[in-house]
């Protein structure tokens, strides 16, 4: 399997998508829409990052599984 079939889509997805995610996080922090010192918001910071890495893990896992299968 070629790079174009395996890791290039993955890198593009989480690279370009990651830029969109990063800009979003920056904007909501900068505008105080998400307040670090507000109890109800603290969990949301974790959830937002967890979601991003959750999908990174799922896709990476399946690429490894596919590359290792016959």
């Amino acid at each position, binding site marked *: 399997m070629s790079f174009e*079939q395996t890791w290039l889509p993955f890198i593009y997805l989480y690279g370009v998508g990651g830029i969109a995610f990063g800009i979003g996080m920056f904007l909501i922090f900068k505008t105080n829409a998400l307040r670090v010192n507000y109890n109800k918001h603290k969990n949301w910071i974790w959830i937002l990052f967890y979601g991003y890495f959750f999908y990174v893990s799922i896709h990476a896992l399946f690429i490894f599984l596919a590359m290792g*299968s016959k």
Partner: protein
Amino acid sequence: MENIVGTNLDRIVILAYFALVMGFGAYFGKYSKTTSDYFFGGRRFAWWLITISIVATGIGSHSFVKYSTKAFQYGFSSTMTYMNDWFFMPLFLFGWLPIIYYMKLGSIPEYFEKRFSREARYIATFMILLYMIGYIAIQFLTLATALYKIYGIPLMLTVVLIAIATTIYMHFGGQTSVIFTDLIQGFILIFAGLLIFILGINYLSENTIFESGLSAFWQSLSPLEKLPLAHFNHPPDFNFVGIFWQDGIAGSIGFLFLNQGLIMRFMAAKSVNEGRKAAAFNVLFILPISAIVVSNAGWIGKAIYNSVPGALSENIAPNDVFVAVANLIASPGVFGFIIAALCAALMSTSDTLVNASSSVIINDIYRPLTKNKSSDEQQLKLARLSSIGVKVIAVLLVPFFNSFDSIYEAHGWFHSTFTPPLVVGVFMGIFWKRFTSTAVIATFLLGAFLMILGQFYPVLISPFSHGIELRPGRGYSYIGALYNIFVCAGVGVIFTFFTKPDKNKNLDGLTVFDAHKLKDMFKGSKANETEGEKVEVQWKIDSNKKDVIRFSKNDMDRMSAKKGDLVYMQDSRWWYGGLKSIHSVFGKPHNEDGIVYINDKQLDSGLFVDNFPLLAEKEM
């Protein structure tokens, strides 16, 4: 009639399912007393109820057919479109959702008027209505195509019958009916999708030499078919980069920020935080499950095709995979149930869109034209009639969509044509204060013109193609979305810099930069953010006609509430999910602990019953 599939038992199961859902939906009509109830369910539901009902909205009847087709052709990468929505969650959860909820927006076009101008609202109304009604037509067509093969009734007659069936419960119930019918249909969809997988594994276990059905499934798929993402830029009709821009960017923003049906669902949540929970849970857990539910008939079909020669026809058309696989692996009656799930998908998606369309008709056409002088009762009546009108137009559009090569193509054309100008308009409106009214109208009109130009002259799209092959005579497919976004955004930026910002325009609460003060604006005074307890109380009737409810001083202290704060009160039985609940304001306290005084109107709106305690909490 050629190739009629299924048995009489299957046909009875499908009819019984339609009858069950119509009865269930019509029952909830009693909860729709005002246009707010009809469109937004009274803003009272718990996050879990919203989440499960979203499952049924997100999975249309076209989803089963479309994703099974791609799953059969390309394997696990059919899940791509369901698993790329997280990137915009920060902006949605903490930017857009609070804006629409706290600014009490009745519709997306209303945002365009408040943020820009009335002209922008009218153009947005036209585009959104066209988009939603066309989407409903595609849903009708997909299901009719499947039922037509089972019942042998002419296609257009099947379409009309489906439209009538969905009208019956929608007509009376509005958003509450939509949410509750979608709740059961969501469960049925997930169950049916997983049932297909179990039946398929069982079929593979019995008909192959592998140790187990799961082993047969895994080993019958090639490594390429197990990859979760498609090839970067090949083939033209299914490649990663094109689908990323069409679905992961334009589609995700469209889904989260512009889908009036989905937005209305979040606005039916009892609070912004409940809406956030529903959205996050949906994208994190429900969408991956949905991806499996809609795709696995294709994966199972491919595994059977690879390992059980002759079980599926050599010449099977990819679009027929879903029905063919379901018919092969399920016994009579069970096949009917699976097709009933397809009906569930259609009914739940179209009812949401019909409700959303009538909301747009009332909020963005009728109310502005009549200057909101008609009574709520008249508007509710018109909302019900307009939901019928929307379906009539959708039925009339079916032949047009039937003329496309496939439902997939019709659906793709829709997304790429109607979403980008609106996506750019709403996105730049929220995140760029300088973005002007002239610029948004130019984005809609000139942007649309440049998009059409791109369809006729694919050479314009070539610089964005990422090496995707140009299909002779058919142009580029998904990657056109990148070009469309680029030209719309470009027009928006250029016109913004060449026009003066309207200094008289009040943008308070309409951009992400005001998100931190939206609660104060919603309440009308400083929000009380002190955390308090939830308190269980018994209700008593008060002769007071004001929209306040009165608790004891001690109970208010436990809730950290003050007179004038906002309160939410619901039946303490959690499984109602907020169906029996009200929002109000804390009134002057009394001294009877554990007692709350409400008036007749609040009792009627909350549908509270004797002897069941209520659970109250301070909102802000």
